[in-house]
């Protein structure tokens, strides 16, 4: 038993318990910011620790190879930890003002993070399932965490029903794969030729459909806009970057290590659904007036872009997916930090609520614009470099049409992203003068948005640093 291999997970679980105990010890009427600070400090230490886990030789494993800590898993774990760390940073104020159960909120965030980290390392269906459920069950509660909002409870119910049903479909698929292949370990499944039998194929399809639900791929996306809109804003941010990236991490590992012999079946399927996502997500985002709902459709489109890289199914494609997932985290951090402040101060996230933000809080308006431009893929933001990697990878594999669809849809997406910028920067009419009143921006939010902007611009101007890290992560995939 190599307990060092699961050091990250043990540390997160311990941190979770410490936070839980601290919440119990703290009187109810005292500010709970210190609990947030404890979890942030803990996460920062764990983040530094994960850098030390990168390795060159054989990857450490745990539980007889069921838990696999290769550089690929480490990269995703760092992505989740960074996302969680900065989400807690910019939501301290929001949690304090709008949530009733503040201590539990941090505990559940950490348990969702634990689930994501387990997923990134999963090397068999049991570990995948346990990690996935730890994450989604935590998210069911987090989505409903805003006790005073009726939208929050409605979103939680919708998420629970769709999430549980998709889990059942995925599990049924896993059971069929297990019956056909005789094992739940990815590397054993891929060796078994019985996967070509009807039961095996049905199982593979159901597993893929289950993941499509989790990644909100069109046409399995109907839950996403409602849930994103109703959930507390920091939780929406985590759903968009953490939950989606975790799904992609484990989906990619399953496709490449458990089902590679069926590649001829699922590769065209993946390319088709990627195109559907990019087209549908971007078109439907245009007519949204609520920014969170718009970002939900935008995240459907972003999942489509990442699936383009998965459809390339080679090292360059994987590298592009990893790169894009990381820069999407930074873009999301900026956008949702701004939305969190707006939600706290103005009580909503519709396009009307961000009117005149350029006068009320110039920093936030600038950050929002840069983050959205990064999602659209405009140079010199990181989004441009990410899309360049994705599309070159897929063109080299012969999917020219897919890159073309992605390119056209990126251009269309600029429209609705800039509509948001227009709402923030346009001149105010005399009736709207109240919107020019300065908005209180806490210091923590300033720090979070500055980090996100520097990362977005920095990675756009010199993407080599992150590219070399993704290279290292991909080259040693499953080794």
């Amino acid at each position, binding site marked *: 038993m190599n307990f060092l291999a699961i050091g990250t997970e043990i540390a997160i679980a311990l941190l979770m318990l410490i936070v839980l105990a601290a919440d119990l010890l703290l009187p109810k009427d005292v500010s709970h910011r210190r609990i947030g600070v404890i979890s942030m400090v803990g996460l920062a230490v764990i983040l530094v620790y994960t850098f030390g886990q990168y390795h060159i030789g054989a990857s450490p494993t745990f539980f007889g190879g069921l838990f696999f800590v290769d550089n690929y898993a480490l990269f995703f774990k760092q992505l989740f930890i960074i996302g969680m760390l900065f989400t807690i940073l910019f939501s301290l104020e929001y949690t304090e003002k709008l949530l009733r159960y503040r201590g539990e909120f941090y505990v559940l965030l950490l348990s969702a993070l634990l689930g994501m980290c387990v997923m990134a390392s999963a090397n068999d269906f049991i570990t995948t399932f346990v990690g996935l459920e730890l994450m989604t069950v935590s998210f069911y509660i987090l989505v409903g965490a805003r006790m005073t909002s009726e939208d929050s409870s409605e*979103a939680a119910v919708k998420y629970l029903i769709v999430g549980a049903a998709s889990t*059942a*479909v995925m599990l049924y698929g896993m059971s069929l794969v297990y019956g056909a292949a005789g094992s739940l370990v990815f590397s054993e499944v891929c060796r078994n030729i019985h996967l070509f039998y009807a039961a095996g194929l049905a199982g593979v399809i159901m597993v893929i459909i289950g993941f499509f639900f989790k990644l909100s791929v069109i046409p399995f996306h109907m839950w996403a806009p*409602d849930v994103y*809109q109703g959930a507390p804003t920091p939780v929406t941010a985590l759903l968009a970057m953490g939950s989606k990236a975790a799904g992609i991490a484990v989906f990619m590992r399953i496709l490449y290590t458990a089902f590679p012999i069926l590649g001829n079946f699922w590769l065209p399927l993946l390319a088709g659904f990627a195109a559907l996502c990019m087209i549908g997500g971007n078109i439907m985002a245009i007519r949204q007036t609520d920014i969170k709902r718009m970002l939900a459709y935008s995240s459907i489109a972003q999942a489509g872009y990442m699936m383009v890289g998965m459809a390339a199914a080679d090292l360059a494609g994987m590298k592009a997916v990893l790169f894009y997932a990381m820069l999407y985290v930074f873009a999301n951090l900026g956008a949702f930090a701004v939305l969190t402040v707006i939600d706290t101060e103005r009580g909503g996230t519709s396009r009307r609520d961000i009117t005149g933000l350029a006068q009320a809080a110039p920093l936030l308006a600038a950050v929002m614009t840069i983050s959205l431009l990064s999602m659209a893929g405009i140079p010199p933001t990181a989004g441009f470099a990410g899309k360049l990697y994705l599309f070159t990878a897929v063109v080299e594999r012969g999917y020219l049409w897919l890159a073309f669809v992605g390119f056209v849809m990126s251009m269309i997406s600029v429209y609705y992203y800039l509509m948001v910028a227009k709402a923030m920067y346009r001149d105010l009419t005399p009736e709207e003068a109240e919107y020019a009143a300065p908005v209180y921006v806490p210091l923590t939010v300033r720090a979070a948005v500055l980090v996100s902007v520097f990362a977005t611009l920095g990675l756009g101007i010199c993407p080599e640093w992150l590219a070399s890290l993704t290279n290292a992560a991909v080259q040693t995939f499953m080794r």
Partner: protein
Amino acid sequence: MISFVEMMHLALHVGLPHFLLLSAVLFAIGLFGLFTKKGIIAVLMCIELMLNAVNINFIAFNHYMPATDLSGQLMALFSIAVAAAEVAIGLALAFRIYHDHHTVNVDDLNHLKG
């Protein structure tokens, strides 16, 4: 066409196909109920049916497999635990939406749309 003798043989010896059929029927009933039922409690029961169908599948495959390694039964155990957690949260949310919306009818939850 199978002969009468073969049919009797099939009916008297319970084997893997019977379990798979049972689980497929259970799963289908659950899925059907998921789309047709309106109350959240009934919907949760249908999800539970689907998850139990999966458990039957895992255990049956595990039992009839040439080399037994028990991983299927292990998966069924995990799945039971997770299903319990999901239903616990589902019931808590049922209370919550009854408090917020004065209904447990899932179809009436239509404030969020666009």
